[in-house]
């Protein structure tokens, strides 16, 4: 098989895009064209993708988000379970570069806590007389870096170690750190979930389309039933199947499995249709005549035809997983403490009290929106790029 540049080699091409081809790849020079023609339809599609500004922007956002997720314990100024009794529900605390009308190295003013004598509500005010300078590679809470080394250096921190840039929750835990580390859960649920559900969907859809007959009929009926369930109620029901006594890593896997279990039916249907159509093509019959086994034909001869479709479908399906996980965790049926995720963080903002007094607890929502937006941008751009009908 001629494996011209696949999406796997993508980021390199993307990197050249923003400066190189500003939105107007519609007019390639003559030499260009012949090269593109030699490199096959995938390369052309890739060219069209890099010409889409939103698609490229989305791809960059995703690369950044996943890098952040990978390095999050280092980027986060605090450990995610470290509680600070003195700084409960502290509002966001800005970094400053102006001191007494003059530009200064980045610093923060220390906060002073006061209590309302009647309501006992805490008020935080900045003490403008002192400055706490921002330090890079500051010492802080110990953590495991990339699962290999135990380290206590964080990308940044301030001298007294009590800077919470985006505020704190009801235990005085740093919201920024929790958002950063929570991205590990929120962003990987989709990837693992897609891998799982696509494996199921491809195998079941492939079997259904390839064998036809009663196998096909039985599978199709089953799919019909599965598709006639509304997603969320079933998701909620399945999430309560996970035993509450499980440790949080198991719960994480359980949630991924539940999400995948709901997601595969639609895909299986499409794969079946594609396989059904591809089965009649001569080279498949040739492979059969040569005595290739069924599974080999499906995996080696039929599936490669579907790769571009599958990549697009996966990109467009991923937001569903991110949203599904956040909804479950938000309702308290998903990810469990001490792990955290964006949905679980939003659960803290659920009460009317929190919404009116501590609105900064809503910030994790911005990350959900950003990641879903980026996946949709990339997915739509890929679909347009590979869409042969429109050309």
């Amino acid at each position, binding site marked *: 098989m001629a494996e011209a540049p696949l999406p796997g080699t993508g980021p390199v091409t993307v990197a050249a895009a923003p400066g190189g081809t500003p939105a107007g790849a519609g007019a390639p020079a003559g030499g260009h064209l012949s090269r593109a023609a030699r490199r096959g339809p995938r390369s052309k599609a890739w060219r069209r993708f890099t010409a889409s500004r939103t698609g490229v922007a989305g791809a960059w956002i995703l690369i950044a988000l996943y890098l952040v997720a990978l390095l999050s314990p280092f980027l986060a100024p605090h450990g995610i379970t470290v509680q600070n009794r003195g700084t409960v529900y502290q509002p966001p605390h800005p970094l400053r570069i102006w001191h007494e009308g003059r530009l200064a190295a980045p610093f923060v003013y220390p906060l002073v806590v006061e209590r309302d004598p009647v309501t006992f509500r805490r008020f935080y005010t900045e003490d403008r007389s002192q400055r706490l300078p921002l330090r890079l590679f500051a010492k802080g809470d110990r953590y495991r870096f990339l699962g290999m080394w135990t380290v206590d250096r964080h990308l940044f921190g301030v001298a007294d170690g009590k800077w919470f840039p985006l505020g704190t929750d009801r235990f005085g835990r740093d919201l920024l750190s929790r958002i950063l580390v929570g991205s590990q859960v929120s962003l990987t649920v989709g990837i693992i979930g897609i891998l799982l559900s696509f494996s199921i969907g491809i195998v079941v859809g492939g079997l259904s389309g390839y064998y036809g007959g009663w196998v096909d009929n039985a599978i199709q009926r089953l799919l019909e039933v599965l598709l006639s369930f509304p997603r969320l*109620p079933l998701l909620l029901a399945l999430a*309560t199947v996970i035993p509450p006594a499980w440790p949080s890593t198991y719960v994480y896997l359980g949630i991924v499995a539940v999400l995948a279990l709901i997601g595969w039916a639609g895909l299986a249907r499409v794969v079946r249709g594609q396989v059904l159509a591809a089965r009649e093509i001569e080279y498949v019959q040739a492979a059969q005549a040569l005595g290739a086994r069924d599974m080999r034909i499906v995996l080696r001869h039929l599936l490669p035809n579907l790769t571009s479709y599958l990549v697009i479908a996966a990109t467009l399906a991923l937001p569903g997983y991110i949203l599904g996980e956040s909804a479950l965790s938000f309702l308290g049926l998903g990810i469990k403490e001490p792990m955290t995720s964006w949905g679980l963080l939003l659960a803290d903002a*659920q009460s009317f009290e929190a919404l009116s007094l501590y609105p900064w607890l809503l910030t994790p929502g911005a990350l*959900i929106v*950003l990641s*879903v937006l980026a996946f949709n941008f990339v997915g739509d751009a890929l679909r347009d790029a590979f869409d042969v009908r429109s050309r």
Partner: protein
Amino acid sequence: MFVYLARRILVMIPTLILVSVICFAVIQLQPGSFADRYLEDPRFTPETVARLNAQLGLDKTPVEQYLIWATGIVTRLDFGFSFFANRPVSGIIGERLAWTVVVAGVTLAFAWLVAVPLGIFVALRKNGFTDAIASFVGYIGLAVPDFLVALLLIALVLAYGGTNVGGLFSAQYLGAPWSWGKFVDLLNHLWIPVLAIGTGGIAQIMRQMRANLLDVLNADYVRTAKAKGLHPRRVTYRHAVRTAINPLVSMAGLQLPELINGTIIASIVLNLPTIGPLLYTSLLNKDQYVAMTLLLFASLLLMVGNLLADLALAWVDPRIRYG
């Protein structure tokens, strides 16, 4: 038409039976049972709990339990007993189902009323500034989870000193007979869930409407109509928009599941009297018959909605014939 309808309804029956089996199986997979909550209570001996289980019929095998439940539904519309509310399930869910349909229906109508004109407007200004803004806002609308919209709206209302959040009525109208004041109060509460559930749908319908209309505007018959010298506005609205609406109707069927999902999650956040909060608490309390029945009705709603969408499509698009 009638034959088609009858056939569709007949096909629903085996599907519903399978759906009920799956509902039951999923709920049975939940660890523990309703009476387990008393095991940790020192006032209950294990024997009492066992007796309680026997009273509630939880000691029977799953197959027996399913058959009892299913026969009850088929023979006397008895959906089982809510352990938690200590009442028959049918007495609890009726009103909630009605409110679910109302909230979902109002949201659907609202989404269409906003999204279709917006889609037309944007399509006629293709690639312009408005188009770019609208498509970006559309992307955002698709990316914001329903519950987050609900939370943001609540935060906004609270920040401006409003109090009409949560529930569908203010306290003084709860249980009061219908009056103009009660209706206005309902509208005052309803806009938050409608916006929260509808945003995603609005974005989707708008994008679809834009794409459909752009497709149709390039069609030969539209060019012919223009060439005949018809007024451009007439060509757009009578010829192009009319056809562009058709695919939207079939899309409405696909949107129903999302609408039901949205209703459920937004209702939990906003504490609306729909099936959402009830499903949630029944799942947590292992109130199995309530949970099973609600799952069953959720998929029934979906099936009926799909059927209605198909019928509406036949009504809107005269080229479609069922027979």
